[in-house]
């Protein structure tokens, strides 16, 4: 016997992705329990991380906001003095 996770087990993100993209009228009770179970697992991990001060792993499903292109040059900050403004 080994304690290693079953490599054939379905990964959580794909399972969730598939579940959430399904027509909601097709859900069985088991599907709903699965969705709730996945979110509860996340909560457990989050609470544990909060309690221990560790940063929880980012959810693989959560979309990330797009990053600004590094190529975009920043406009130089213009600084005016009262003299520039003729004051």
């Amino acid at each position, binding site marked *: 016997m080994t304690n290693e996770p079953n490599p054939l087990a379905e990964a959580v993100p794909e399972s969730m992705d598939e579940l*959430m*993209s399904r*027509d*909601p*009228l097709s*859900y069985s*009770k088991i599907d*709903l*329990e699965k*969705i*709730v179970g996945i*979110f*509860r697992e*996340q*909560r457990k991990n*989050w609470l544990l991380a909060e309690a221990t001060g560790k940063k*929880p792993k*980012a*959810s693989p*499903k*959560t*979309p*990330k*906001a797009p990053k600004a292109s590094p190529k975009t040059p920043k406009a130089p900050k213009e600084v005016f003095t009262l003299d520039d403004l003729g004051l």
Partner: protein
Amino acid sequence: MNLPDLSHNSSFLPTSPGFQFAWDSTSLGELKTCPRKYYYTIICGYQPKTLSRHLIFGLHYHSALEHYDKRKSLGDSHETAVLSSVHFLLKETWDFKLGRPWSSFDSHKNRYTLLRTVIWYLDHFAKDSIETIQLANGSPAVELSFRYNSGLTSSSGDPIFFCGHLDRLGKLNDAIYIVDRKTSTYAIDERFFQKFSPDNQFSMYSLSARIVYHQPIAGLIVDGAQIGVNFSRFYRGLIPRTETQLDEWFLDTSVWIQLAESYAKASHWPMNDKACGNYGGCDFREICSKNPSAREQWLQHGFSKRTWDPLISRGDV
């Protein structure tokens, strides 16, 4: 200013064109913010063609929790009510016409974080110390709509009504509170709760619950939810309202309603140009920045129309 046809809106008096006699906190809030905004949103019924993701998220969040409260009050266990609420929410956030889920294009407020927040909230408060009170008719005090004669009258003697919708009345440490839920992408701290005192919506709710349900309401309990990208965090805050504070709010409201009547009589709702930048900017700022003669065309192009009738619509989020 032009008045639209208000014959289909039961909250306006046919005898006093443009004057609203049934007020909810949304319409009163718009009037207080800016009479011109009130004219556009409540009287004319304009709303942005694309609703804000914050508004959509808040509406779904509220209705899912309301669904849970209802199931619980009907005798469901926590587990059954959670599953039922999740299914309800999945259906509510699905576009059956297009066969796809609601997309907000926001990393904080989207369908996924909505489901997560609802499930985490329900589990967080599963052993809730707030006990839902029973009304005099024996029914649990959840999903309460109210409408009553405020005691105020128009200049021609017509009664002014207050109306709205409360989530739940609950008892905590022998005091009765209105329970409400709010979401934010910012931290839920002292400042978050401070913004509800004073607050138009909560004062109207507190006053109305005392009058309609004959309960000595101590104020509100607000369950604030911080929506992060990878987490949802909850805090509960008490928002007290004393009798004298509510008396003051009522007096202030009577003056605001007199003002509403004077605007209607003059057929002119002035701009409050000091409020244009509030909360990230008013939806109508661009309209108000145009020449008056061009505004109607811009409104028709950039906004859709709906009827805001507090006698039939749901209240605030």
